[in-house]
C-alpha cells in the first residue's frame, strides 16, 4: 500500500464527515473505532517502514497548482514517523479517556478532523500543504477549547487561535520568499521542501528567513516570551483538548524547526544558536519557576510543558546527532507523558470539578491506583532513567554540552526545578492527611480510565528501557540531516559547529 499516507490523512477526515450521520448515542463508539483503525494503520506504516533508510518513504506527489508550484506532496522519514503514530495513539487514548456528556458527537467529529490535520502536518513535504494543515489544525482546537472549556474558554480559545495564526502568517511570508528565491534560481515555482533543500541561500537571507519561520514555530512551541497563550489554553480546555494540544500540537513547532529551519538555513541556524539557547534556557528555568508558584494542578503541568519544550528546542540546536535525536525522542516522550498527566488531572477534575491543589491532599490513600500511575508519570516527567522521559532529556543535554557547557548546566537545572514543582504538586495532592471530607470517598480509576492510561504507562516503561526501535530510525534520519546540513553550510563556523557522528564520517 504505497499511498498509506494519504489514507492516514484522509481516513479520519472522511470518517469525520460520515460522523455527521452517526447517531449521537453511538458517536463515541464510532470515534473510538475510527481512531483504532487509524492507529492500526499508523502501526502498519511503522511495520512497513524501512528503518535503515534515512530518506523519505511512502512519497506521494500529486500536482495541485503546478503553475504556482504547489503539490500534494507527502512522505515520512524517521523523524516524522513516530510523531504520526503518537498523534494517532493520543487521539485514540484521549477519546477512550474522554468523559464528556455534552455534544459528544461534535467532539468526536472535531477530534477526527483534528487528527487529519495533525497527521497532515507531520507528513507534508510541500510547504503550502504543511501550512494548510498547520492552520487548519487551529479550527477544531478552537472549537474544542471554546465549546467544552472552562469559564474563560472563549478568551482562551481566541487567544490561542490568533496568536498562532499571527505567527504563522509571518512564516508564510518566509515560505513565499523562499519559493521566489527558488524560482529566481531555477525558473520554476516550487513549494516542495525537498526542492528547497537544494537551494543554497545567502547567509543574510537565511537569517531573515530563519526569523520569519521562527515567528511561526516559536509561538507554536511556545517559546518564551510567546508562551502566554498556553496556560490559558490548557487551563480552560477540556481534558481531551489539553491532551492533544500538549501531546501533538506543540510538537508542530519543534518539528518545524527540524524540518524547515535546520536544513534550509544551516548557517543561520548555527548563527542563531546563542539566541535560541538564551530563549530556551529562559524558557526552561523561568517557566519552571512559574510552574512552581501555581495553585492549579493543570496550570502546573501546562507550564511544565513549556519548560520541557525548552529542552526540546535546545536539543534541536545542538547540531549533533545526539542532541537532535534526543530532541525528537523527547518530543515523543513529552507527548506521551504530558498527555498522560493531563488525562490524570482530568480524572480528578471529573470527580471533584476543581483542579485547585488546596482542595486535595491525601489522595494516595483514597485512590491508590491513580496515585501510582500519577507517580509513574511524574517520574517520567522529571526524567527518571528507565522511563521514557530520561532518554530524550539525557541525549539533549549530552548533545548540547558540546555546544555550550554553561547553557547545558543552566538547562540541566530542569531536572532539579522540574522535580521541585512536580513533587510539590504530588505532595500537596496525594500526600498528607485527607483534609477535605469531599475527597474521602472518591472512587479510584474506573475501567475506562485504566484503559486509557495503562497503555501509556506501558509505553513509558517500554521505551524507557528499550528505546531502540524508535530511536534507531530517528537517529538514521537525523544523521542524514546533519550530513546534509554540513554539506550545504557555507560559512566555516557552521561547518565546524555541525558535528557529524563518527559513523557518518567514516561512511563518507
Amino acid at each position, binding site marked *: 500500500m504505497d499511498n498509506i499516507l494519504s489514507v492516514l490523512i484522509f481516513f479520519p477526515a472522511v470518517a469525520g464527515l460520515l460522523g455527521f450521520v452517526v447517531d449521537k448515542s453511538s458517536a463515541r463508539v464510532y470515534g473510538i473505532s475510527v481512531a483504532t483503525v487509524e492507529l492500526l494503520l499508523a502501526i502498519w506504516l511503522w511495520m512497513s517502514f524501512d528503518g535503515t533508510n534515512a530518506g523519505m518513504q511512502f512519497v506521494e506527489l500529486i500536482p495541485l497548482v503546478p503553475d*504556482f508550484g504547489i503539490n500534494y506532496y507527502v512522505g515520512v522519514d524517521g523523524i516524522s514517523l513516530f510523531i504520526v503514530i503518537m498523534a494517532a495513539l493520543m487521539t485514540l487514548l484521549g477519546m477512550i479517556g474522554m468523559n464528556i456528556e455534552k455534544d459528544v458527537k461534535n467532539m468526536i467529529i472535531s477530534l477526527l478532523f483534528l487528527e487529519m490535520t495533525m497527521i497532515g502536518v507531520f507528513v507534508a513535504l510541500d510547504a503550502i500543504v504543511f501550512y494548510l494543515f498547520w492552520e487548519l489544525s487551529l479550527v477544531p482546537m*478552537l472549537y474544542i477549547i471554546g465549546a467544552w472549556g472552562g469559564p474563560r474558554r472563549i478568551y482562551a480559545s481566541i487567544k490561542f487561535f*490568533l496568536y498562532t495564526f499571527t505567527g504563522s*502568517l509571518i512564516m508564510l511570508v518566509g515560505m513565499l520568499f523562499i519559493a521566489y528565491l527558488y*524560482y529566481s534560481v531555477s525558473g520554476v515555482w516550487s513549494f516542495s521542501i525537498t526542492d528547497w533543500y537544494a537551494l543554497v541561500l545567502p547567509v543574510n537571507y537565511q537569517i531573515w528567513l530563519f526569523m520569519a519561520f521562527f515567528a511561526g514555530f516559536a509561538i507554536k512551541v511556545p517559546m518564551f516570551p510567546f508562551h502566554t497563550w498556553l496556560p490559558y489554553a490548557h487551563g480552560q480546555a477540556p481534558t481531551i483538548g489539553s491532551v492533544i494540544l500538549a501531546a501533538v500540537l506543540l510538537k508542530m513547532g519543534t518539528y518545524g524547526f527540524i524540518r524547515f529551519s535546520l536544513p534550509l538555513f544551516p548557517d543561520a541556524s548555527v548563527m542563531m544558536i546563542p539566541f535560541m539557547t538564551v530563549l530556551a534556557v529562559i524558557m526552561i528555568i523561568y517557566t519552571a519557576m512559574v510552574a512552581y508558584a501555581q495553585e492549579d494542578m493543570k496550570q502546573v503541568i501546562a507550564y511544565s510543558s513549556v519548560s520541557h519544550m525548552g529542552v526540546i528546542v535546545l536539543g534541536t540546536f545542538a547540531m549533533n546527532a545526539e542532541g537532535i535525536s534526543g530532541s525528537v525522542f523527547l518530543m515523543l516522550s513529552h507527548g506521551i507523558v504530558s498527555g498522560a498527566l493531563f488525562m490524570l488531572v482530568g480524572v480528578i477534575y471529573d470527580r471533584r470539578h476543581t483542579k485547585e491543589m488546596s482542595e486535595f491532599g491525601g489522595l494516595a490513600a483514597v485512590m491508590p491506583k491513580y496515585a501510582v500511575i500519577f507517580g509513574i508519570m511524574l517520574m517520567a516527567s522529571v526524567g527518571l532513567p528507565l522511563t521514557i522521559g530520561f532518554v530524550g532529556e539525557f541525549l539533549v543535554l549530552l548533545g548540547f554540552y558540546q555546544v555550550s557547557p554553561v547553557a547545558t548546566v543552566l538547562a540541566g537545572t530542569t531536572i532539579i526545578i522540574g522535580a521541585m514543582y512536580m513533587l510539590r504538586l504530588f505532595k500537596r495532592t496525594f500526600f498528607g492527611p485527607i483534609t477535605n471530607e469531599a475527597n474521602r470517598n472518591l472512587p479510584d480509576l474506573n475501567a475506562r480510565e485504566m484503559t486509557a492510561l495503562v497503555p501509556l504507562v506501558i509505553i513509558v516503561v517500554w521505551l524507557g528501557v528499550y528505546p531502540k526501535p524508535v530511536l534507531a530510525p530517528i537517529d538514521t534520519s537525523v544523521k542524514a540531516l546533519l550530513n546534509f546540513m554540513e554539506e550545504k553550510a557555507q560559512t566555516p563556523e557552521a561547518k565546524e559547529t555541525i558535528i557529524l557522528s563518527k559513523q557518518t564520517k567514516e561512511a563518507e
Partner: protein
Amino acid sequence: MLEPINVSLASLNLVTLSPMLIAIAGGLIILIIDLFKDGLHKSLYVMMTILILFVDFGSVMGLNVNERGFFDVMLIDGVAIISQLLILAASILFIPLALTSKRFHEYSYPEFFALFLFMIAGFQFMVASDNLVLIFVGIETASLSLYTLIALHNRNNSYEAAVKYFTMGALAAGFFVMGSAIIYALTGSIELYQVADVLQDRINEPAVMGTILGGSIFLLAAFAFKLSLFPFHTWTPDVYEGASAPLAGYMSIVPKIAVFVVAMRIFGMYIDLGVEWVRILILILAVLTMTLSNMMALVQQDVKRMLAYSSISHAGFVMAALALDTTKGNTGIFLYYGLFMFTNLGAFAMLWISRHKNRIFHERYDHPYEKFAGLVKIMPMGAVVMGLFMLSLAGVPPFSIFWGKIYIMSAAVDAGYIWLAVVMGLNSAIAAFYYLKLIVYMFLYDPVENDNTVYYNASKPLMTIIGIAVAATVGSVFFMQPLISYIFYMVSASGY
C-alpha cells in the same frame, strides 16, 4: 468644407460591442415586457436576467484577445475579458437572491432588473475601454443605476445610504473630471495609450512632474472613493448597511472589479512611466485602508457592518497588489476577486437568509452578533456554512481566499515588497479576530432566543446559490490551477 468620411463596417469591429449591447437590449426587453403586461412575478424577470447575462457571458467568451473596435474606443484585451466574465458570473450568482421567501420592495419593480442590466452594461463599458470619456460615462451609468437600486430597498436606511453614496459619488465624479482635464491639458489626449506616449516624452521636463502627479491624484481620489480606500471609504459601511444584504455583497465585488481594471489601466500607466510617487501613494492608501478598516471592523456590533469593513480591508489588500504593477500582482487582483466573489457573496447571502422584517433584535442593527448566538444549535448546517465563509475570509487554508492571499503576498514578495507581505500577513491576523468573533457567537455561545427566526428568508434558490458558494469556497484547491493559468495568460496577453 469637411470631407465625407467613409467608414467600413468591418473596421468598426462591432463584435467588441456585442456583450454590452446584449445587456442593454436585455434591459430594454424587460422594460417592454413590463409595458405590455403588468404584475408579472419577479421570478420571470430573474430568470430573464439570468438568461440575458448568460448570453452576455457567452458573447464575452467568444471575444478575441487584444482587439480594438469602433475607432479604437473599445479595447478588448485579456483584462477586459476576465473582468467582464467575473462581473457577469457574480451577477448571475447575485440575481437569484431576489427569490426570497419573503417579499421585498425592490423586486416588485421590473425596472429593478432593467437598471441592473444597464448597470452591468456600464461596468462592461468601463472595463472595455481606455478612453476616459467612455470610462466616465460607463462609471456614471453604472453608478446612477446602483444608487437607484440601493434606494429601491425602500426603507429609511436605504435612502440615507443612497443619498450618501450619491453625494460622495458626485464629488468623486468632480475629482474624476478634474483629473481628466489636467491630463488633457497636459497631453492633448484622453486615450490612455496616447497619454502614455506623450507623457513619456515630457516626463523629463522639470516642472511637469507636479502636474502629472496632480492629475493622477485627482483620479486616484476618484478611484479611491469607488474602491473605498481610506479616507475615501466612509460611505461603505453605511451604504452596505442601508442596502439589502445581497446588494451589499454585490457592491463589495462587481463595482470594485470594474474600477480595479480602470485603475490598473491608469495607474499602471503612471507607474510604468516611472512616477514612483503614485505607487507610494497607492501603497500608503492600501496599507492604511487594510489596517484601519480592520481595526474598525474589530469593534463592530453588527455582522453586516463588520463585513462591510472587512470588504474595505480586502479592497485595500488588493489595491496593494495593484501598486506592484507586475503581471503576477495584476493576476492576483482577478484571482482574489474571483475567489472573494463566492465567499463574500455567500456570506452576505447568509445574512439575507436571516433577514427578518419585523423581528427586531436590536433597535439599530439588522444583524447584530447576538442574533447568531448559538446558531449551531438552531441551524447546524447554516452555522457550519457561515463558519466556512468566515474561515475563508480570514484566510485559513484550504478555503478559497487563502489562495488569493498567498498569490498576492507572493506577488508582493516577488516585487521586493517583503514588508508589504508582512503587513498583509499581520492584517490577516487582525482580521481573523472579527471573523472568529462570529464563529464564536455561532458555535460557542448559547442562543439568545430559541426560535427559528434565522430560517426566515430561506428559499430554494438561495440555498442553491449558497451551495454553489460553499462548493467554490471549499473546493477551491481543485480549480486553482486552471483559474490561475487562465487569468495569468489573459493578464500577460494584455501587457499588464
